[in-house]
């Protein structure tokens, strides 16, 4: 047997957080008498440098060889204290963290019973750590390349930064073009920077970087592995253009298949063979196979190709190629979609002049800038009404849930600024236009954003404030001077009911998460209540997820372009740190077979979802070979389905053996005596 077990128990006050509900002195006193406990101490902040030093000194001077800290959640400080053990030269896995804050002091009402509960939990820890053995992390070789999913600005920025760092990046975009949402905007708030220029420059930098490979029309359809090493299956769909006909525009005019163009947010129609008007890459036509998924439509398309003798030019059917790549890390830059109002929401779909903010931006791109009047659908627009918070900040009982039954309770962050910026733009183009904004709170929070708001007021944009319970009502008028009248109880004018005439209603729609269920399930990425991807912790690990995937930009939640850039760059720096290492130290908490008990029943192999176990010939003693189960340490995730499946109790999770836990339970139920 190795050296004598000497346990140090350290009980943290966490200021008052623990000490006001748990008698920490008593806890230390009672536990000091437990078998194998060499020291038991309490301290105001165990995580402080002084607290850490105290433990370090005890290890060095008193020969403590097992450490228990009872403090806040291990999520916050397990690593901190493991670091202490390492600095003191003790194996960091000889540490047990007991949570007496989130799971004792904060949830208890009675100090006496809370103290007893803390004692029981720590006794459990003592029982477990007593049988704990020194463990070494499993070293995993890092694949020094990265997959970035999504070719919007966030994906482009992540890829660009990593590429410039010399890391090989595969940028995977689902649609035939990279550029994303920002490519569709015009001028960005607050500094009027041209979105097209920004995206053009990014695309240039990314496509010229020899470390970056761009895959459009591509999706990840399968993947396995974990941080440091994934193998990922990518499916790429052909663009469908064999050779571009010279007179493509003429040819396309005969194409019978037309859809509402998603590129213009449904404002215009376009052909099934297309290329966006805004900046994108590659600047080559593609066939919109997604909108030919209906067999009838596909037949119609084929017929047209054949009849127009275009078989040499266009593919009749898409071809799908698959490839497998190996990467060390994956960044999700999967972006957002604009909220789609329900039919009738502020007149949506009931009148062509009810448009969304992205649509208005498209409309303004197309207007004749020499005109002194705003003309849309052939009629002069004299008054525009913006309605804020459409699809955002929804409140139970006051708003109608979406098709999934969920409310978008969150603020979409970009819309106040984008709306006011667009209102100012309108006033610049058409000084005589009446512009109204119906809002709940104006959230112009950036350093230059408030100036835009002030400018809008100076520009005579009229602001009307409503309460979510009494939303503005849009009434469509027939054959009258104006298309709409909008009634609202305006808080800024004594809650009087006011009627505002308008020719156009603009809905400032929020951001919603895109449909990426398949991707999310391949890599088991968590999502928050809002449906966006969930970071492991908003401050400690803001761009990391609990499954090892990294997040960039609006995949994580609403952000404006500048914030998405920061998020994407932050994700890149974290990934750069991973791939700059040759090896990652993985958790040693994986399955281990006790070959003296193993009968090679194969039950464990059957239940393992990760193909991490196989039954092979093992030399059990010199010259004697038997069939035994064997675990592959880089594939095993330590989930433990094999443990309860084994009829011989021959397989255990290292560091979490059933025997340790049975001991814990016995220790925890023991009476606590005064």
């Amino acid at each position, binding site marked *: 047997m190795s050296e004598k077990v000497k346990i140090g128990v350290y009980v943290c006050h966490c200021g008052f957080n623990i000490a006001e509900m748990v008698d920490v002195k008593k806890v230390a006193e009672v536990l000091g008498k437990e078998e194998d406990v060499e020291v038991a101490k309490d301290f105001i902040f165990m995580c402080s440098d002084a607290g850490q030093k105290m433990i370090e000194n005890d290890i060095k001077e008193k020969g403590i060889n097992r450490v228990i800290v009872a403090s806040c*959640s291990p*999520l916050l400080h397990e690593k901190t204290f493991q670091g202490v053990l390492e600095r003191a030269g003790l194996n960091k896995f000889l540490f047990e963290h007991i*949570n007496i*804050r*989130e*799971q*004792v002091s*904060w*949830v*208890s*009402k*009675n100090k006496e*019973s*809370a103290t*007893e*509960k803390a004692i*029981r*939990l720590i006794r*459990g820890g003592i029982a477990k750590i007593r049988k704990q053995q020194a463990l070494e992390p499993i070293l995993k070789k890092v694949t020094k390349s990265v997959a970035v999913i999504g070719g919007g600005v966030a994906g482009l920025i992540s890829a660009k930064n990593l590429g410039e760092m010399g890391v090989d990046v595969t940028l995977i975009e689902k649609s035939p073009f990279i550029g994303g949402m920002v490519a569709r905007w015009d001028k960005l708030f607050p500094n009027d920077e041209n979105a097209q220029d920004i995206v053009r420059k990014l695309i240039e930098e990314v496509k010229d970087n020899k470390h970056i490979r761009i895959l459009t029309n591509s999706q990840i359809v399968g993947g396995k592995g974990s941080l440091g090493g994934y193998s990922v299956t990518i499916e790429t769909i052909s663009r469908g253009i064999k050779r571009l006909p010279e007179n493509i525009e003429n040819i396309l005019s005969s194409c019978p298949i037309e859809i509402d163009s998603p590129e213009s947010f449904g404002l215009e129609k376009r052909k099934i063979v297309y290329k966006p008007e805004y900046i994108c890459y590659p600047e080559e036509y593609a066939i919109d196979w997604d909108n030919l998924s209906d067999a009838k439509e596909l037949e119609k398309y084929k017929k047209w190709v054949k009849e127009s003798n275009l078989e040499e030019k266009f593919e009749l059917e898409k071809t799908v190629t698959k490839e497998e790549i190996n990467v060390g890390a994956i960044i999700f830059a999967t972006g957002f979609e604009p909220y789609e109002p329900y039919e009738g929401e502020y007149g949506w779909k009931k009148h062509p002049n009810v448009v969304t903010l992205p649509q208005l931006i498209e409309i303004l791109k197309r207007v004749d800038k020499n005109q002194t009047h705003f003309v849309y659908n052939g009629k002069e627009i004299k008054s525009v009404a913006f309605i804020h918070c459409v699809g955002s900040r929804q409140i139970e009982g006051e708003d109608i849930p979406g098709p999934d039954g969920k409310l978008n309770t969150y603020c979409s962050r970009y819309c106040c600024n984008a709306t006011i910026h667009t209102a100012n733009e309108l006033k610049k183009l058409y000084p005589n236009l009446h512009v109204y904004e119906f809002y709940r709170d104006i959230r112009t929070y950036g350093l230059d954003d408030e100036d835009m708001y002030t400018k809008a007021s100076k520009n005579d944009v009229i602001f009307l404030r409503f309460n979510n319970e009494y939303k503005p009502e849009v009434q469509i008028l027939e054959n009258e001077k104006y298309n709409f009248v909008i009634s609202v109880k305006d808080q800024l004018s004594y809650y009087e009911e006011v009627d505002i005439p308008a020719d156009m209603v603009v809905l400032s729609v929020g951001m919603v998460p895109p449909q990426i269920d398949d991707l999310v399930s391949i890599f*088991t990425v*968590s999502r*928050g*209540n809002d449906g966006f991807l969930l970071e492991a912790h908003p401050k400690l690990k803001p761009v990391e997820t*609990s*499954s090892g995937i990294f997040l960039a930009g609006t995949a994580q939640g609403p952000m404006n372009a500048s914030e998405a850039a920061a998020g994407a760059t932050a994700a890149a720096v974290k990934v750069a740190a991973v791939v700059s290492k040759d090896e990652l130290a993985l958790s040693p*908490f994986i399955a281990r077979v006790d070959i003296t008990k193993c009968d090679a029943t194969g039950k464990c192999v059957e*239940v393992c*979802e*990760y193909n991490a176990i196989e039954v092979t010939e093992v030399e059990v003693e010199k010259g004697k070979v038997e069939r035994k189960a064997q675990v592959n340490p880089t594939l095993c*995730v*330590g*989930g*433990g*389905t094999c*443990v*309860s*499946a084994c009829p011989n*109790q021959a397989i255990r*999770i290292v560091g*979490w053996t*059933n025997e340790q*836990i*049975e001991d*814990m*339970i*016995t220790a*925890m*139920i023991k009476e606590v005596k005064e």
Partner: protein
Amino acid sequence: MQQNAKRQKIKTKKILIITTNDISYLGADTAGQQHLKYSEDALIIRVPDPVIFPPDFYVRTLEKGFGGIIVASAGDESPFLNSHARLAKNIDAAYKIMNEKGIDTKRLVLTAICSICAGSFIKAVNNMTKYLDSVHEQE
């Protein structure tokens, strides 16, 4: 059988809550961060996944003196593929043994708690507390 179960002596009102390291343990933490109160008799342990426990483990734990057990699985959020289904099978098998031994099956509950599900966590604990209180009074 039911008769037997009711007459059975439950030593303590102590509840063992088995959580998963990555998910349901955090659900319990979330309840703590929101300062939601629950019985001090509820003791939480964490494991990679409760699927590691064979069915007889639960029976042994009750026999050691725990009044009830809540197995807080990660449900669909589990990072381990298919573990919840296998865990459910283990729990079913445990119920079978409990029935054979005349132990009230209400003392073992399987539930799924997500990492932010403070509400459902509290509900599960309160239900078990209430149940154990009622059994206790009948003694």
